[in-house]
């Protein structure tokens, strides 16, 4: 079970982190 949690957890955290980083960059470019 821990392998499944690791696979889905890492995927979720990485994708959410990437999207948040892009949204922050988009907002910065919008505000400048």
């Amino acid at each position, binding site marked *: 079970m821990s*392998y*499944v949690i690791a696979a889905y957890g*890492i995927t979720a955290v990485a*994708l959410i982190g*990437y*999207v948040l980083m892009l949204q922050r960059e988009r907002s910065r470019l919008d505000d400048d």
Partner: protein
Amino acid sequence: MQDRVSASRVPVVTRLAAWRRGVGLVTGALLVVYAWLVFDAPVDRVQGVIQKILYVHPPLAYGAYLGFILTAIGGALYLWRNQAIYDQLAVAGAEVGVIFCTLMMVTGPIWAKGTWGHWWSWDPRLTLTLLLWFVYLSYLLLRSFTEGRERTARFAAVYGVLGTLLIPLNYFVIDLFQGRAMHPENLSSGSLGTGMGLPFLAGNVALFATFAYALLLRWEVEVRRALWAERDAQMIAGGASG
């Protein structure tokens, strides 16, 4: 080059943002359904619960392939039409593709450790996947070191088009090795157990939507960066002439 200093990309940004918002709403709903279907999916009799990695690992691979194919399409269109918007699509496709490819190469070894007993094997599929990852990582490094140069964009376009040659090889390499590869065969009709088809379909649809959202967002960021770069250049040119 003329397109790089065109103000006509402002409506492009608006259109990309509108598409992204729509895709974002659909993606959120799809991810909820996907999570429930994976949780509710039957446990495999042979592999046990670890087989549920199936619902995330291949969809990540398809996302990586799609990103790299879009890099080639964007690159080819850039070479043909010479419009920066296509080059920006190519960059977005490569970056999102590398993210998906990286996650595929993280989830795969986790699955391998639980079933084969070790994280990695120099199996033809795994080795070619690593090569594919390096090819597109190199593409991104090339772009980051030489930002905004038309010559680099042209070189990257050719590189991106040639890079896609690895995709069919990566996909069909297991068939070429005819059972001597350690990686399981590609999925075909009827190869999934009872009750596993729907969560697998949901995984593909939800991660495709996630891919589309990330791609639109990354594309928009790239267009906005170019807009700011040209405004800065115009200000500097205006300051110099004034």
